[in-house]
């Protein structure tokens, strides 16, 4: 059988559909129709039903989007794709019962074929029995349920398989039925009329060309036909890490950066920054342009929000991301960030080399001259310690004397408390940040990773503030000891003052920044209250009318500079004890073991 389409049917030249058995016609429920693109007149082929689940083969299609479907000769939803509205049509379609053809041609295998058919029919019927497709008896007895939920249109209407090209285009075509024409896609929103027209000319230029509309607009295929949630980018894409966008901009909707529209707003309900539906003059903006901006990675794109006098609470300057060095105290990406951190890292590595050279100046197991021999001998000794029972002693020293600081506690409880306030807090901040970094790298969508990444999350805000306060308290204690009480046994050198001042500046700037961030971004009090240090600071800052959004960048750079200095200073000044003291303890332990 052949059905010729009108001359207006475009795209697909010829297609043949061969049905193995008439059985499939009976099974299906949807009528097959072809639609003329300009007049929208449907050619109805009632009786030739298309929802055959299987058992047909397709050939002879030259329509580009469906080429894959045609190659795959058993594609299931192919007919769905051909039963669609514009823009994809068939010029003609052939339905050729394969069974009659083969009977004519190969009469001498008629009987075996019939046998096989009978067997397969039997098998098919028996399979049908096993699958409870419907239970009519029960359905008659139970009264029809009262519909209280929203009805999902696609529950009753065709649901194309959106994991295939043909299903995607079918799905898109369903949406195009209205959205293709301006007249049919006019909507009223807040008494403003706007057009939600989307045409293939514009839509096909965007990277989501082969993605079904309902894959992103998950809540539109229902009644009433209205989007509430907006396009769901994160059902496929993960959030950015710190390296791409500062604190991954968790309060900013994807579209705010990744769409061309330049009007943004702060949604007071969920406190997210989104694209605005009205422009500066109050005119309605239809967000139908699906093309992505090319320059989203450039600073210019960020200036959509990061400009003077913005209303969404963004700092004026576009700041670089944190560096991996910041992981000592913050969640950080696997990137170096600003160049000052590169300098800090190089200075740090150089300092470590100088320190190593200093360590190897003495003789190693009698070797005085050759550096190579010294390294060989000492590394051999370390290796033998690691892979022997001595490692247990080392672990013991590590746990008691380094983690728990037992030796300092034996000397003085006060000194231990002071030192632990600083060191344990930094250690915990590092461990939390490192765990967050690792967790985010492995599973970016997990709620833990996102909670640790989000500065406004209750746990993260509270614990980082608490630990920061501990460090500050420890530093204050040190300062009181060294500058006010001045006990006889405490000898203060310039090195000590530099170290203490550096850490103090780092922490104070950090708290200042936190306060400014809360003040600028206008985080609602119930969310900000967890930052029990930052929120009062934000309140104090809000009393003065300074331009905190403009100042934020300067304070941020000052904090970053202090952090870079801290890292660079590690192997030079007083902070060298971080490496020296544990090493000395280990060596003492090994030497002591030998003597015993």
């Amino acid at each position: 059988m052949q059905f010729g389409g009108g001359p207006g049917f475009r795209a697909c030249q010829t297609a043949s559909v061969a049905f193995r058995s008439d059985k499939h016609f009976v099974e299906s429920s949807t009528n097959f129709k072809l639609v003329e693109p300009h007049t929208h007149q449907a050619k109805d082929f009632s009786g030739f039903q298309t929802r055959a689940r299987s058992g047909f083969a397709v050939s002879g299609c030259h329509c580009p989007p469906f080429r894959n479907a045609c190659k795959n000769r058993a594609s299931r939803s192919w007919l769905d794709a051909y039963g669609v509205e514009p823009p994809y049509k068939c010029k003609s379609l052939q339905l050729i019962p394969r069974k009659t053809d083969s009977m004519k041609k190969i009469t001498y295998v008629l009987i075996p074929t019939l046998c096989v058919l009978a067997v397969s029919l039997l098998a098919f019927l028996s399979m049908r029995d096993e699958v409870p497709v419907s239970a009519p008896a029960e359905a008659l007895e139970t009264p029809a349920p009262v519909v209280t939920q929203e009805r999902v249109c696609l529950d009753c209407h065709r649901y194309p398989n959106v994991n295939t090209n043909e299903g995607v285009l079918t799905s898109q075509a369903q949406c195009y039925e209205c959205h293709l024409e301006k007249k049919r896609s006019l909507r009223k929103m807040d008494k403003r009329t706007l057009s939600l027209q989307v045409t293939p000319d514009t839509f096909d230029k965007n990277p989501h060309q082969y993605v079904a509309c309902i894959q992103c607009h998950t809540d539109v295929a229902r009644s009433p036909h209205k989007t509430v949630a907006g396009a769901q980018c994160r059902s496929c894409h993960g959030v950015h890490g710190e390296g791409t966008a500062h604190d991954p901009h968790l309060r900013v909707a994807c579209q705010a950066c990744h769409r061309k529209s330049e009007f943004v707003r702060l949604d007071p309900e969920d406190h997210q920054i989104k694209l605005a539906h009205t422009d500066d003059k109050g005119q309605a903006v239809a967000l139908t342009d699906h093309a992505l901006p090319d320059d989203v990675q450039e600073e210019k794109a960020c200036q959509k929000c990061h400009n003077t006098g913005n209303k969404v609470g963004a700092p004026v300057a576009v700041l670089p991301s944190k560096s991996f060095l910041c992981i000592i105290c913050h969640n950080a990406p696997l990137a170096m960030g600003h160049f000052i951190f590169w300098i800090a890292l190089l200075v740090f590595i150089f300092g470590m080399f100088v320190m190593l050279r200093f360590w190897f100046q003495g003789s190693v197991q009698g070797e005085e001259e050759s550096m190579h021999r010294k390294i060989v001998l000492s590394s051999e000794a370390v290796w033998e310690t690691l892979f022997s029972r001595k490692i247990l002693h080392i672990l013991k020293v590590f746990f008691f004397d380094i983690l728990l600081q037992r030796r300092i506690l034996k000397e003085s409880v006060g000194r231990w408390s002071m030192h632990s306030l600083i060191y344990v807090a930094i250690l915990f901040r590092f461990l939390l940040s490192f765990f967050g970094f690792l967790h985010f790298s492995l599973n970016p969508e997990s709620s833990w990773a996102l909670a640790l990444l989000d500065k406004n999350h209750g746990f993260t805000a509270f614990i980082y503030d608490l630990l920061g306060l501990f460090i500050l308290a420890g530093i204050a204690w040190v300062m009181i000891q060294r500058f006010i009480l001045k006990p006889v046994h405490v000898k203060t050198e310039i090195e000590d003052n530099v170290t203490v001042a550096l850490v103090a500046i780092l922490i104070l700037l950090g708290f200042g920044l936190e306060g400014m961030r809360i003040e600028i971004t206008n985080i609602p009090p119930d969310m900000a209250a967890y930052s029990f240090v930052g929120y009062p600071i934000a309140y104090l800052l809000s009393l003065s009318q300074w331009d905190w959004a403009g100042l934020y960048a300067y304070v941020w750079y000052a904090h970053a500079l202090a952090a870079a200095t801290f890292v660079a200073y590690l192997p030079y000044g007083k902070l060298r004890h971080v490496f020296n003291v544990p090493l000395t303890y280990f060596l003492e332990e090994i030497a002591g073991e030998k003597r015993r």
Partner: protein
Amino acid sequence: MESNRYENQICVRFCVLHRLLHIGVMITFTLLAVTGFALKFSTETWAQGLISFMGGVPGAGWLHRVSAAMFYLIVMAHLVWLGYYKLVLKGHLTGPHSLFPQIKDFQDLCQNFRYIFGKGEPPLFNRFSYLEKVDYWAVLLGMQSMGITGLLMGYPEFFSTLFPGYVINIANDLHFHEAVLAVGYIAVVHMSATHLIPEVFPLEKSIFTGKTTKAKIMKDHPGEWNSLYADEK
């Protein structure tokens, strides 16, 4: 017995750096194989279990790329060592006691087969036998092509501006097939040739301790023995 005299005489066969690098390669190679095959066969149940353990497909992918970067850092560290060995220690990168292929390796191979079939004496291996050399070069060269195809797949947007798109597909195929080859080689040849030897089974410890006995050198590497310790005889 002459060998008894050397049974307890220990000498260093691998320096600490080489032991470390070997452990590093062991860990990263295993991680690469596990994550890579789990991703390739992601429709299988065992792979899905593994992948969910590693935090989903993005996590497994991240682990694969990080392990690959670590592996390549190890290769680079080895190359730096070679430079140091040549320039500072004035060692020889070629010659009978190096890993550089020699005609003798081919002769050893033939000799070994003659010996296995009872037609002659066992070959006198130098410091590295031909199988050990194959182990080494398989990793060193294999990593280059794995690295290149991996980079092609990792940054398809960039590389498809330089090459036609099908190069990415070719890289994908080569990467997988070479992975099968590498894992097969390690699991079958390296494991059996190194560890499945009656004297050392189940584990040849010298690459971990770095030490071996003179008796063992005399037996496994008689060529090296003859030239290095000949004067001790």
